[in-house]
């Protein structure tokens, strides 16, 4: 099974890659030991969004479906977590609220995806329909300010957003600060490795084949609609995981985290990073979130303009993504160097045997 961690669908293989992976993971685990709690909290915030980026990478980069609906499912699970956590009374029930809210997002994705995929919607229209659904939810939630808009004791609160839910809790222990950071690192490792295994399996082969040529994939006996739906549900479920974790982290969620500017962000992260590779998406999205947050401290408008400029630069200069391009250059350089070293060793061996 672990053989699936490497394969044609994912870049990065061999001892060098996995050594780097362990070094980065070790650094991430050690980070809270020497960073202050504010920075750890900030890093936890960046990590929350990685699931949404990986989900879009799966759908768009591997499955060929450009979904503008990541914040739709982010919002469904985010509000879902809030409603469930408040109604279930907090405490350990928040863990159940997290699981159920992600399941809710996946069910919603299953319903929307079924009608789109079985209805033959693809290409640019897939993006248009998912964006429309996203805006519908954002506008709907924006007009829920009145007291009549509540589910049990959980008020939706319109543009002011929902608040008052507990963070993730086990017994009396709130999963916040460093604890939340470690939970997020563990979840990212699990999701990243699981996606690698999925994509390098037979299912991944069909997902990529469907992106390349859906008619040919069907002519090989695959009901491509089922594979597309599976991809959409998993990718959207990961956006839902981001949403539920976000609500738990901040103990609030507003419609602005669903609307148009928010919906465009995952597209920028994934396009800039390199949509056709999980590792590039993971690294690039984290770097962009870090940069965006740093600039936002000084000017939110400037940060948004920078994101737009990055998207333009990606489309014009590196359509496959900057991080992926740089990663490939480094890999080529490393391979050439290894070949050079091997050639020197071979030549030295030849000379030695000639002398003998």
């Amino acid at each position, binding site marked *: 099974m672990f053989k699936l961690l490497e394969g044609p669908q994912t870049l990065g293989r061999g001892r060098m890659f996995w050594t780097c992976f362990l070094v980065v993971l070790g650094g991430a685990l050690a980070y809270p030991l020497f960073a202050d709690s504010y920075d750890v909290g900030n890093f936890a915030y960046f990590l929350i969004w990685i699931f949404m980026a990986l989900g879009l990478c799966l759908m768009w980069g591997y499955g060929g479906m450009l979904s503008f609906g990541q914040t739709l499912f982010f919002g469904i699970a985010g509000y879902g977590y809030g409603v469930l956590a408040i109604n279930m009374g907090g405490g350990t029930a928040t863990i159940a609220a997290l699981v159920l809210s992600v399941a809710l997002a996946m069910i919603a994705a299953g319903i929307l995806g079924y009608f789109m995929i079985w209805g033959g919607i693809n290409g640019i229209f897939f993006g248009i329909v998912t964006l429309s659904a996203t805006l519908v939810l954002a506008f709907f939630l924006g007009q829920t300010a009145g007291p009549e808009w509540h589910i049990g004791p959980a008020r939706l609160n319109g543009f002011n957003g929902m608040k008052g839910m507990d963070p993730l809790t086990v017994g009396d222990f709130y999963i916040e600060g460093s604890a939340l950071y470690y939970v997020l690192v563990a979840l990212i490792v699990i999701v990243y490795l699981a996606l690698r295994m999925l994509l390098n399996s037979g299912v991944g082969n069909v997902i990529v084949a469907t992106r390349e040529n859906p008619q040919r994939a069907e002519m*090989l*006996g695959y*009901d491509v609609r089922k594979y597309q739906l599976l991809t959409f549900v998993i990718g959207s479920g990961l956006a839902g995981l981001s949403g539920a974790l976000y609500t738990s982290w901040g103990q609030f969620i507003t419609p602005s985290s669903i609307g148009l500017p928010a919906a465009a962000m995952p597209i920028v992260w994934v396009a800039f990073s390199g949509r056709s590779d999980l590792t590039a998406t993971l690294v690039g999205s984290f770097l962009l979130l870090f940069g965006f947050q740093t600039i936002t401290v000084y000017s939110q408008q400037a940060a948004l303009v920078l994101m737009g400029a990055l998207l333009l630069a990606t489309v014009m200069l590196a359509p496959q993504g900057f991080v992926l391009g740089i990663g490939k250059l480094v890999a080529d350089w490393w391979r050439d160097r290894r070949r050079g070293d091997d050639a020197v060793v071979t030549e030295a061996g030849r000379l030695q045997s000639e002398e003998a």
Partner: protein
Amino acid sequence: MALVEVKGVSKRFGGLTAVSGVDLTVNAGEVHCLIGPNGAGKSTLFKLIVGLYPPTEGNILFDTVDITTERPYARVQRGMSIKMQAPSVFKELPVRQNIQTALQERLSGAERIAEEDRLLTLLNLAPDSGKLAGALSHGQQQWLEIGMALALKPQLLLLDEPTAGMSPEETYKTGELIKSFNAEGMTVLVVEHDMAFVRQVAQRVTVLHLGKIFARGNLESILQDEKVAEIYLGKTHAH
């Protein structure tokens, strides 16, 4: 025994009738060629049989089961395998991965890798197995697609102009390949207008003209039919 039965099938696109009341039987174990001049409706009939178009009228049976409303993937799961007219491969994926995607439902592990190697060697694609399929020549892409179709080990192999864009040598080799698979029991239905290729492989021939069956029979009787020669073959080529 009939493997495919097309019964009274018509296909209309608005006011245009591309195929009209066609009855066609493909017997198990034969190589059946569907020929006709341009615009005869050959490719439309092919797409009706593989399920890319729903017929306006009529029924299609495969191994006595009515498959008229089934989607292409379901027909493939029943034992059909299809090669379209234009090369239809996964261009951004390596050649071996193309074959692997076709094989993975039938074989796994070492068996699958051995079968990949056998097919790649058979199709002269072994030296290029690591290349992207889009980097292959047109003829090689045709072979790769034939290889993907063969990888399914079908009862019925459907080929729409399999030699388009191939050199005479490649065309001849493709014909021999089809004959070798037919000798192992595979039924083959070929849409083709290269008469040298048809002569090489066909056991039975159906001629389509203006969307209707114009003539049918063995190759010799078709070649000697004056009316067929007039509409399609050209009298000088008929003998």
